[in-house]
């Protein structure tokens, strides 16, 4: 079992806490209670196969307070992270550019770390819109070839996949 620290980052209200709650406890709430500071939750992932060998991770998930316009505070939270789930809100396209800023900053501190981008709240927008947003996010992520997931903490869409995607990035 490998213990790995991973961080959730993104603008305020994009759904970081909700994604963690869905992933760890399979719960969701419409209430918004903004996160102050950081809350660490553990979760053991299902084993991942690589070259015929199973790898098992225990994630220490750092749910970190949201940024305002991408401004970084508390940089020390990022120290020693093996991965980051960078979250954007599909209903707020302005959060995309901030996600890019945060991702670049994170990789500067933790070069070589695994990064996944999640476009969250898919349940709130129309199908046609999703495709366009996904394309934009892929352009942002594509520059450094990181995967993009379209997620919904509310419906559960691709939530587990995103976290597993992070673990796979660590094996790559």
């Amino acid at each position, binding site marked *: 079992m490998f213990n790995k620290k991973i961080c959730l980052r993104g603008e305020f209200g994009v759904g970081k806490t909700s994604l963690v709650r869905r992933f760890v406890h399979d719960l969701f709430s419409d209430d918004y209670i903004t996160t102050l500071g950081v809350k660490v939750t553990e979760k053991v992932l299902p084993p991942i196969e690589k070259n015929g060998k199973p790898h098992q991770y225990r994630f*220490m998930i750092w749910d970190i307070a949201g940024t305002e316009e991408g401004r970084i505070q508390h940089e020390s939270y990022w120290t020693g992270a093996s991965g980051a789930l960078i979250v954007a809100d599909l*209903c707020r396209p302005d959060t995309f550019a901030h996600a890019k800023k945060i991702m670049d900053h994170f990789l500067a501190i933790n070069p070589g770390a695994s990064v996944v981008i999640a476009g969250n709240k898919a349940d709130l927008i129309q199908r046609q819109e999703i495709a366009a947003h996904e394309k934009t996010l892929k352009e942002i992520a594509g520059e450094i070839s990181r995967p993009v997931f379209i997620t919904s903490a509310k419906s559960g869409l691709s939530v587990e996949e995103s976290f597993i995607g992070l673990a796979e990035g660590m094996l790559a």
Partner: protein
Amino acid sequence: MDGLVSISHLLEALKAGYAFLDPELRIVRSNARFRETHPSSPSLQDLPVFDVLPETVGLEEVLKALRSGEKTSFTLQYIAREASPDILYLRLVLVGTRDPEKPVLVVLSDETEQARILQRVQQQSFEIRLMRSLLNEKQAALAAGLIGSSGAMVRLRNTIEKLSAIPSSTILIRGETGTGKSLVARMIHLSTDLRDRPFVEFNCAAVPESLLESELFGHEKGAFTHAVSQKKGLLEEADDGTLFLDEIGDIRLNLQAKLLTVLDSRKFRRLGSIREINTRFRLIAATHRDLRSMVKEGSFREDLYYRIQVITLDCPPLRNLEDDVIRIARHFIQVYAREFGKPVAGLTPEAENKLKGYRWPGNVRELRNVIERAMIFTENPSLDSRDIQLQSTGEDAPVQTVETLPDGGLSFEELERRLLKQALERARGNQSRAARLLKMSRDTFRYRLEKHKLLE
């Protein structure tokens, strides 16, 4: 260590928790306060720090640098921990000691009080901004606006419409809680050309006096203890838009004076700054208090009162709105029927009578909650009087008993646990809603969830 004072005495005096780590990063000495933060194992002796403090996982490099003296300390602020019934916020500091036996000192201190204040302030501003950004979607829902065809409601709607032609004037909205003051403020904003400009809503009663001023005016870095960075105030955010000050009657006199100055001069300064900033916004104020008698008592400034009451709107209490109770109830039935996917058509005549006979101290907000609850529980094609549970009628509100005590007794804990789970399921995971179903506050509800380990 430097011989002046013992570190452990110092840390005890500061009410901090501490532990020393050995070269293998295991805990070798800790005080009671430190162990309190990890109540599941009574002694932490010889446990690896990574097991005791999950926040240290990943910090191997940092710990190495502390041991070698390359780094002197490392700090993590505001680490949240679930601690029943509330959340605790800790500061974690790692310090290198240069003692080969105990090369690292871990200090934990309680920052909960400060964190709570910061959390509340951020909650206000983030919540508003998140709502505003989702406004386009909500706009459609709001278009329905104020429901009702009683004389008072029709007059109110007409006034709002007229106001759209005079976008600059200050407006005061009066009314009891839950009568729709916030809704009216938003409708006014949306009905004018300011529609695409910011609508900044702020509840003056929800933030401690000491922070109100910096919220409104903003501050420069270092203007006061918690001002860790520069921040725009609401006056600045509302520029060219609408500033909605809810519960304006709750602002103290000295801040009233400052607000009046801004309204007159259209200029203000951030705290800690000498630069004047120009701002133009429409002020909408609301209160459930009687400002005129507050003026008489001397708790509200007369000049500010006259400045804001140029145009006054009164949101009437629901009990004076005749049949509107039924119209508004039907509206909410439609809303929740869609949300819960339940084909409930309307109200039986008995249910209507029950709604009409009640005083509605919480007005439309209370009506909405009553309908929401009824819609969650009902199995009927129309809401029946038994579905309608009113708070304070005394008679006619039979407590729904769940069961009689079986002869063999039952596990009360298990019953409580099942009810909590059911409420959560019915409310689809929404804790506030689930708490309302069990008629308890959200905090109490969360406390009980935690007790049964139904919470993270």
